[in-house]
């Protein structure tokens, strides 16, 4: 690190530190089941958005098919558990591995499509995957799969770390989801500082220019979709173990893919904090409107997202994080041409 980079760091680490403390302490303060449920969903959706951000935000490849990877994670661990008694921890690894393979297989042909066509192809991919699962009886078809409860000697539902199931208190799910989100966020931050991050941003900006600078565009896009798929699949397994029930409707639907994208876009695309901010705003809002307006209010939360997205795209395409930046004076956002460029450049060469 150079001196240039060091100065703003302490303030920023302080912000991250307080976010971590708040996240750790929140479920101990807000102890109701509703609050805990919102907290767990918030963390899982934030993970989905952060994983989407690697592909859609950093690399600029807008995907509306990430639910496929979520579904692969949920279904792989659940099928292995129900059919073969495999621990969901191993199932989680298997799901991540399968999602990685599928990501590479579909990424290879789909990344040849430019711009909007890639986004459209990902929608098709999602529909194909959910149709297959809905009609595949061996994995529960349209009715889905129920994960049997772990029971103690008295036959009461109990907790088991080995089986990744917590029936006494849901608190462990919260902390597991928090660890997963922290890991996904850390990986995103590390990518941004590395060659991979610079290359993905270059690809998002201009693929031809990136090629002219030696960037093997397809290879780096595949790296992005692979990382995105792995974290999304792990979140899928955790989600399945939390709900103890999966079906194509909840794990593979298009809304879920769109939600992952919307949260990241709302918060701020291509930034580390954006998906977290987006989830922190959107998930409680959606859950609370649903709670207050009852079953009939199902569409109200969608209406709210829609409205928010319209406002964001109109007034602050950089997302909520962009609004925050407006209040800070940053040298990057100041008007240009304050100082003329140095006159003779060849002199400086000698």
């Amino acid at each position, binding site marked *: 690190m150079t001196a240039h980079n060091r100065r703003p760091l302490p303030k920023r680490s302080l912000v991250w530190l307080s976010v971590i403390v708040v996240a750790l302490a929140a479920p101990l303060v807000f102890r109701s089941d509703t609050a805990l449920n919102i907290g767990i969903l918030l963390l899982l959706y934030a993970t989905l958005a952060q994983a989407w951000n690697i592909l859609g935000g950093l690399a600029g490849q807008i995907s509306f098919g990430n639910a496929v990877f979520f579904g692969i994670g949920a279904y792989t661990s659940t099928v292995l558990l129900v059919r073969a008694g495999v621990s969901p921890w191993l199932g989680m690894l298997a799901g991540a591995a399968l999602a990685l393979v599928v990501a590479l297989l579909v990424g290879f042909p789909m990344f040849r499509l430019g711009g909007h066509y890639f986004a459209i192809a990902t929608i098709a991919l999602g529909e194909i995957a959910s149709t297959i699962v809905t009609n595949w009886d061996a994995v529960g078809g349209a009715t889905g799969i129920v994960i049997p409860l772990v029971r103690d000697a008295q036959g009461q539902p109990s907790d088991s770390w080995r089986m990744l199931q917590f029936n006494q208190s849901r608190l462990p799910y919260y902390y597991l989801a928090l660890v997963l989100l922290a890991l996904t966020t850390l990986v995103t931050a590390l990518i941004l500082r590395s060659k991979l991050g610079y290359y993905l941003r270059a690809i998002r900006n*201009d693929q031809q220019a990136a090629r*002219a*600078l030696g960037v*093997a565009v397809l290879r780096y896009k595949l790296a992005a979709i692979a990382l995105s798929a792995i974290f999304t699949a792990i979140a899928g397994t955790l989600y399945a173990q939390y709900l103890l029930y999966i079906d194509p409707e909840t794990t593979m639907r298009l809304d879920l893919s769109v939600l992952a994208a919307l949260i990241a876009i709302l918060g701020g695309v291509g930034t580390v904090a954006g998906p977290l901010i987006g989830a922190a705003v959107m998930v409680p809002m959606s859950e609370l409107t649903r709670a207050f307006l009852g079953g009939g209010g199902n569409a109200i939360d969608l209406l709210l997202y829609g409205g928010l997205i319209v406002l964001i795209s109109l007034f602050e395409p950089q997302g909520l994080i962009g609004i925050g930046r407006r209040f800070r004076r940053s040298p990057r956002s100041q008007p240009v041409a304050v100082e003329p460029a140095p006159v003779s450049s*060849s002199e400086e060469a000698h």
Partner: protein
Amino acid sequence: MPLLEVDRVTMRFGGLLANDAVSFGVEPGQIVGLIGPNGAGKTTLFNCISGFLRPTSGHIRFAGQDVTGWPAERLVHAGLARTFQIVRTFTDMTVRENVMVGAFARTNSTAEARRIADELLAFTGLASRADVLGGNLTVAEKKRVELARALATQPRLLLLDEVMSGLTPAERGQAVDLIRAVRERGIAVVLVEHIMEVVMPVSDWVVVLSSGRKIAEGPPATVARDPDVIAAYLGERYRQRMQEEA
């Protein structure tokens, strides 16, 4: 042995023959001007050499290797870099970050890429603009970023596509100084321009294209007097009048 050898390169788009068996060579450390009127096929030839188009026939050899059909990203690693006529700055990355992307062709370390970038920002006179976003630059500055970025890949041959266009006369003078400074680093340069006046003084050798064919090549002074070149630029009637007057 020449660093770059373009050997009877032909590029056909359907019925259009954009390049017709064009051949020329570039020696190490040489500045070669590739000129011709608009539509002569300069940019097409450029795209063939830099790996953005695969020629219909013919061969391109670079540093002793047949590189015909190699994709651009592979050529960069072999030591052949290019800039674009219409600047393609990464608009939401800073000037330094733009140049770092180029530097990553030679290193995996972010610190090393930053060091290479800062050195080239000083070389191209952009040091004071390092933290400005690419989208907030003037055209002349963007052209410098293109150049700094391409240099960061540490090429042996740099292909510059119309670096002078859109610049004021003063800025052109600075650009010419910069190109000479690039050559002093031991890098060969191919300059594509349709403005003859800017290419002639800086080039060691000039290749002239017209309607897809090479119509002349040689030292700038010789090429400037070539009747075919004059005809291509100023029209056949002008050439006849010159001959009548002579």
